[in-house]
């Protein structure tokens, strides 16, 4: 943060005039933001974790090959046949880094790693869907105004009035009945379904923000200037407004990802996620609740969710500070 920290400090520090005169020239907004971001150690820490998580998700099969066992493989030999809990309490060893699940002895390490794939995949694409719908709707509503704006704004209000979680639960149940009539099935179908439901219901949040930004951009001088020079609607839209929406879209997309990670976990926790035996963090937690006396079972997936969401939040906060220092929320 280079913005003034002292409420009584002079505005001059934040204003461009306060910056070294030489440094400001020739740098794009992106470069300035990158400079700010690089200096924000916490945000960079979040970014590093995010990158690591993505790598873990991509290379889960390799990592599991080195350090674990196939995620769905049973290890009954690790289980006490009377209590169904891992022998020795957790089963944590060099062989099973995070121990094993009760009942069937599956490798928690492998399952947490594979869980990252589902979690991130769904969170990313659901966010993408929300951002695409939200941006298009927001820009259309904000740019064209009038009845188009009214219609889209009302639709957004209606969406926000739905009990999101309950509705997603029910919708997934209903849509699953279509299963046989669709080309894709199994996990792929469920993943698409979850992406659709999560992404589709979240777009109004982005939509509202983008609409507001578009409205204010439309009134700004440089758009007026362009218009007075005879620029036409599409030109203004694509050359003047959309580029200025990149920053808010990027910020809110980054902050929507952790929300979606939590949302996917909640759906899996409530039993409508990806079907067994595919490992998901929410699904693991839901299983682990029944074995709360074997706490390592809930600890690892719980921590995985926590670290992922925290990392994205930290990075998102930093990104916002960097791209939009005025909104220091």
């Amino acid at each position, binding site marked *: *943060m280079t913005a*003034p*920290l*002292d409420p*009584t*400090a002079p505005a001059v*520090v934040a204003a461009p*005039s306060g910056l*070294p*005169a030489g440094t400001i020239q020739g740098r794009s907004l992106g470069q300035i933001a990158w400079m700010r971001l690089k200096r924000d150690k916490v945000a960079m820490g979040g970014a590093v974790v995010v990158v690591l998580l993505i790598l873990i998700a991509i290379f889960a099969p390799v990592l599991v090959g080195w350090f674990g066992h196939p995620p769905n493989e049973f290890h009954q030999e690790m289980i006490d046949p009377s209590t169904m809990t891992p022998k020795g309490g957790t089963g944590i060893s060099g062989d099973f880094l995070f121990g094993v699940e009760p009942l069937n002895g599956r490798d928690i390490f492998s399952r947490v790693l594979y869980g990252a794939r589902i979690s991130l995949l769904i969170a990313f694409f659901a966010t993408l869907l929300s951002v695409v719908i939200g941006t298009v709707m927001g820009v259309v509503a904000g740019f064209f105004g009038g009845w188009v704006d009214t219609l889209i704004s009302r639709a957004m209000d209606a969406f926000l009035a739905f009990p999101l979680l309950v509705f997603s639960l029910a919708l997934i149940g209903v849509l699953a009945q279509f299963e046989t009539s669709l080309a894709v099935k199994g996990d792929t179908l469920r993943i698409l379904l979850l992406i659709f439901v999560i992404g589709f219901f979240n777009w109004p949040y982005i939509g509202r923000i983008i609409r507001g930004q578009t409205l204010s951009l439309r009134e700004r001088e440089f758009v007026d200037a362009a218009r007075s020079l005879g620029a036409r609607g599409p030109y203004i839209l694509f050359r003047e407004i959309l580029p200025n929406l990149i920053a808010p879209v990027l910020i809110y997309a980054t902050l929507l990802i952790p929300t979606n990670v939590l949302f996917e976990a909640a759906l899996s926790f409530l039993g409508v996620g990806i079907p067994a035996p595919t490992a998901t963090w929410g699904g693991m937690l839901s299983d682990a609740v029944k074995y709360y006396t074997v706490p390592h079972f809930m600890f690892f997936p719980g921590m995985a969710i926590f670290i992922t969401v925290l990392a994205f939040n930290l990075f998102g906060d930093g990104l916002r500070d960097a791209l939009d220092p005025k909104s220091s929320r």
Partner: protein
Amino acid sequence: MTFLELKDLRIHFPSDDGLVKSVDGLSFRLERGKTLGIVGESGSGKSVTSLGILGLHKGGRAKISGEIWLDGEELVSASAEHVRTLRGKKMAMIFQDPLSAMHPFYTVGAQIMEAYRIHHDVSKKVARKHAIEMLDRVGIPQPDRRVDSHPHEFSGGMRQRAMIAMALSCDPELLIADEPTTALDVTVQAQILDLMRDLQRDFNAALIIITHDLGVVAELSDDILVMYAGKAIEYGTAEDIFERPEHPYTWGLLGSMPRLDRERTERLLPIKGSPPSLINVPSGCAFHPRCVYADRTGGRSTSDVPELLESEGGHLVRCHLSRDVRRAVWENEIKPNLEAS
């Protein structure tokens, strides 16, 4: 005893990028009933100075040194609480952009009453009466009705009048007006300036007007202080500054001053370049990167910091150019240009 005296005031702000030297060794005096205009670009330290006098940097991160003497009291070393009791009563401030400077949720009357009651132990009723009087005095029509309006319900000029009413509500002896007319259109500007002149006369207050607009100080000021990069670069009477300015920066300001008597089509003479960084202040004379005459200082402009020296009869200038050179340039190069245009 001088009513207000600043001695070598320095106000520095630490930041991630380094120390921001917003005010760097400023001294001046001001007597009751007199008006001082402080002029400079944004970032020159004029607003920081005014807030510093009011003690509004206390308790923050600002590093303040030097002395501020107000009516025999030193304020830099005084406790924050003591300075607070002086604020509003002994010294008051009129801010630019009254729309943002007044709280949007409270009525204008309530905000004036609040200022009054903080310093006077009176009932709400009395305070309200006083508020209406003040509004009346600053020329707001139907003050008994407008007292219950919110700032956003006022026009720009009315808001500035209300702001002035609020500042004057406790009969301050020192009044600081920070860009009091910047946000207003030209005709209203004139009205407000008239109002301030009248009020100052009535209250016999010392007035500091802070502005980047020489036109404003021309109307009101007895003395004028020109600031650049946290330092005073020229000080003198209004006549000194307007008739015999000696600093190239002041020339630039005069050149960029819009005048009602000028044709619209004529171009102003802006100062080249942008204001300096307050962290890495240019070496030597802070103005040298923008100074057209820097090459006539024999290289001193980049190496030595010029002193603020008396040119003649209290007229102070901070410049490496010799007085003769300065006068010659003004008379031969600048003045004819300004008048011709």
